[in-house]
């Protein structure tokens, strides 16, 4: 097992115990729900990383034509989608008890809803081909095209609607103010690295499974 997997396990133990037990600043409304920050936000970071890697493999596939890149691209996108759904659910539960609504009109929510729609469409697209080569090539093209249309969205949307419920937008203060004594950073930053490693690890397992499946089928 390579070193980063051990790191991931260590960070997981740290984040899950530290995230639940370590002291956090008391904030009105949020109180102990602020601990969700450790799990909700890193899920998004991990999703963006996985999707970006998926697009990178899509580009590599178009350049080289090796099916292995296609395989990696799909599995990274799948894990990214799962992480996106988890991030969405954790956010909805959090929002229900702090903002009063599980699904408020919020630019950041909108952009993730769209990202999920894109990757669900990607799934449907892949399902509608019989020829492997064609499926790989055309879904790679769509993957790149959609990702390039999605990234500006994350920049544009917050500018269009100046008021977001998320910290750091509109009238809301950034998270720095909540985390006045930096105690949350101690868990938050490791949590981001942990989620990214975990997401990549899950994807590599799926990729290995698919490679073996391909060998068995041959």
């Amino acid at each position, binding site marked *: 097992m390579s070193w980063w997997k051990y790191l991931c396990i260590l960070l997981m133990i740290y984040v899950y115990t530290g995230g639940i037990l370590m002291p956090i600043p008391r904030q009105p409304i949020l109180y102990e729900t602020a601990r969700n920050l450790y799990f909700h936000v890193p899920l998004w970071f991990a999703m963006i990383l996985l999707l970006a890697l998926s697009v990178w493999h899509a580009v590599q596939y178009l350049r080289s034509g090796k099916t292995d890149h296609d395989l990696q691209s799909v599995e990274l996108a799948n894990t990214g989608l799962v992480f996106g759904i988890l991030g969405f659910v954790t956010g909805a539960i959090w929002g229900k008890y702090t903002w009063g609504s599980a699904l408020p009109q919020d630019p950041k929510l909108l952009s993730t809803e*769209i990202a999920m729609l894109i990757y669900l469409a990607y799934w*449907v697209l892949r399902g*509608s081909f019989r020829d492997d080569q*064609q499926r790989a090539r055309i879904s790679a093209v769509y993957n790149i095209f*959609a990702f390039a*249309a999605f990234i500006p969205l994350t920049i544009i949307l917050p*500018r*269009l609607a100046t008021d977001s419920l998320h910290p750091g937008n509109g009238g809301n203060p950034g998270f720095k103010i909540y985390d006045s004594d930096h105690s949350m950073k101690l868990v938050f930053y490791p949590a981001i690295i942990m989620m990214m490693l975990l997401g990549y690890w899950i994807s590599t397992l799926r990729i290995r499974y698919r490679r073996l499946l391909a060998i068995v089928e041959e």
Partner: protein
Amino acid sequence: MQEVSALIEKEIRLEWRQRYALNGMLLYLVSTIFVCYLSFRQKAGHLEPITWNTLFWIIQLFTAVSAIAKSFTQERAGRLLYYYSLASPLGIILSKMLYNTGLMLLLSLLGYVVYAFVMGNPVGDPGMYLVAIGLGAMGFAGTLTMVAGIASKAENSPTLMSVLSFPIIIPMLLVLLKLSKNALDGIDRSFSTDEILTLLALNAIVWVLSLILFPFLWKS
């Protein structure tokens, strides 16, 4: 360049020979607007500006999807193979995108006239609104032509066309709504420069990306 203009001429001729397709699109547009008019009944002339604007762009979006969906499917596979041997993929996609831009301009201007006639015209700054329509036509044509190319390769392409294109086109649609709302309210034009620049940037991304990616699509 010569290749592109020849291909555009071919598209126009093809359209002219199959006039029923063009007429169908025009009728689709007009009847959609008429359905909206009837659905709102007496209220049609007094819609809230924001409803007026949103309804207009949604009609535009659906017309664009159904008009552009056929860009790759109206010709038979054998004919496409023939073009493949004659022209470069860049020429093909560029000509299709330019032609679709023209088509969309025509459809959306006509749509605007009919819509304003039927539903009342609360637009405060028509010049700016036309700029929004122009940028919208360009953006819709660019995005949807590429998606039509992708969808045409798959089975059940009509459904796939909307499923694939809606999430991609939402950013553009949102900025367009903002820009046209500014024009609708007739506020000073300097407030809209931000939106216009964003739209131009989005258009540039989509067009350049289509030109880069289309050759891979065309190969199959």
